[in-house]
């Protein structure tokens, strides 16, 4: 084997690159901050996306996975579209979300719970269920905000915009077989 091919060093950078399609562009980051400057949630982030990339480079895995950055992300893709180095930043944020959820590293955020409730509905019915999502997730996480939601929910309901029962797709077993296979493959 040729000597010039870099050996795997087992760094966090490598881990993130491997887990993100197009992630190899990460090494080209200029630290220009156009992601952090563009982010609509930038002001609420403990670390800007740019800072996270610097931290990934510095192998600061624990701090990255505990950061609130990912949970403030709204997937608007401004960072990705504006990045002068063609780094798929939003997708990298998704990778970090997955790692953080898988290892339960997140702190002070309900986003993972929302995601879980949402996907549970998809797994069970094949469709999302807004009412169930609103009630299930809010009852679980924030009963007070549920009260505040009251009038809005009622309005939605009277205008026929909210169903009380979820729709179920016909071939739910087929979808579940697909999902189970995906979970099985990604567990490897």
């Amino acid at each position, binding site marked *: 084997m040729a000597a010039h091919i870099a050996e795997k060093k087992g760094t966090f950078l490598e881990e993130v690159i491997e*887990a993100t*399609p*197009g992630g190899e562009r990460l090494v080209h980051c200029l630290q220009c901050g156009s992601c952090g400057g563009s982010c*609509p*949630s930038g002001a609420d982030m403990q670390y800007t996306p740019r800072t996270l990339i610097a931290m990934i480079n510095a192998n600061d895995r624990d701090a990255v996975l505990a950061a609130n950055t990912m*949970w*403030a992300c*709204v*997937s*608007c*893709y*401004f960072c*990705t*579209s504006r990045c002068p180095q063609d780094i798929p930043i939003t997708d990298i944020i*998704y*990778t970090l*979300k*997955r790692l953080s*959820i898988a290892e339960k590293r997140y702190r002070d955020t*309900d*986003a*993972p719970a*929302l*995601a*879980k409730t*949402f*996907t549970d*509905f*998809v797994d069970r019915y*094949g*469709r*999302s*269920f*807004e009412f169930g*999502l*609103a009630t299930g*997730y809010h009852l679980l996480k924030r009963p007070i905000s549920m009260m505040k939601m009251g*009038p*809005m929910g009622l*309005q*939605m309901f009277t*205008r*026929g*915009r*909210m*169903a009380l029962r979820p*729709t179920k*797709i016909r*071939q739910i077993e*087929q*979808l579940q*077989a*697909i*999902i*189970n*296979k*995906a*979970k099985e*493959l*990604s567990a490897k």
Partner: protein
Amino acid sequence: MKYAYYPGCSLERNAAAYDHSVREVSDLLGIKLQEIDDWNCCGATEYFSQNELAACAVIARNLALVEPQTDQIVAPCAACYLNLAKTDKLMVDHPEFGKEVNQCLAAGGLKYEPGRVTVRHMLDVIVDDIGETAVRDKVVRPLAGLRVAPYYGCQVVRPIDNNDNPEYPMKMDHLLNWLGAEVVDYPVKAHCCGGHLTQISEPQAFELIRRLLQNAQDYNADMIICMCPMCQLNLDGYQSRVNGFFGTEFKLPIMYFTQMLGIAFGIDPQKLGFGKELVTAMPVLEAKLGGLLV
């Protein structure tokens, strides 16, 4: 022109107005929509946060269900559009990953050949495929005098190239122009509505919503025209709560572009889902277009 139609979960109920107006307008413009049989949820942003392969497999099931004689699928929801397009692109660009997705599909007896189906948004179909002349020809009730702010949101214009500028898209501007409306050129037309943050962090989400409503109001818009059910829900459904939170008095109706096409085409507003919006559009339509909708 024939397309496979993927309405997405929101259009079943919350955004029924969008679904109804899409179907009405399509009929009139000769766009044949064939709803995908037994489609499933695209997983929104939530599935990608947990398991990329499962997220793509769930989405790819819909692509696999597109009938072989159809090679285009149209989605009116921005999140659905992006998820479908992104999954197809991932499978094309990363063949190994594509194989894994197909392994999952195989568990359900399905198969999808990456790149087979082109994913389109409803706006692109009307603007690019139908075009100016055909749209203008159908206008019987021009929207003259109505100041509309086209609101694109994020996920149709970014990151997948839909042949518009991701920073300053113009397609809906053109379309509303064809309808005779006065189009407001305001800077935040492709900024974020807050997405699912309304469920996670209200103060943060409300601030994003406020920015949009404020800017549209600063530019004297009569209403905001959107192209995604999530945007509509956040700007319309949460508008009164945003007002309560900031002490503002926004009263901006948030309508779907297909609803506007429908009234310009003279379709019965009832059929277009008018009245389902929480901030009612009736007064402004009455004032600007005069008695049309009574």
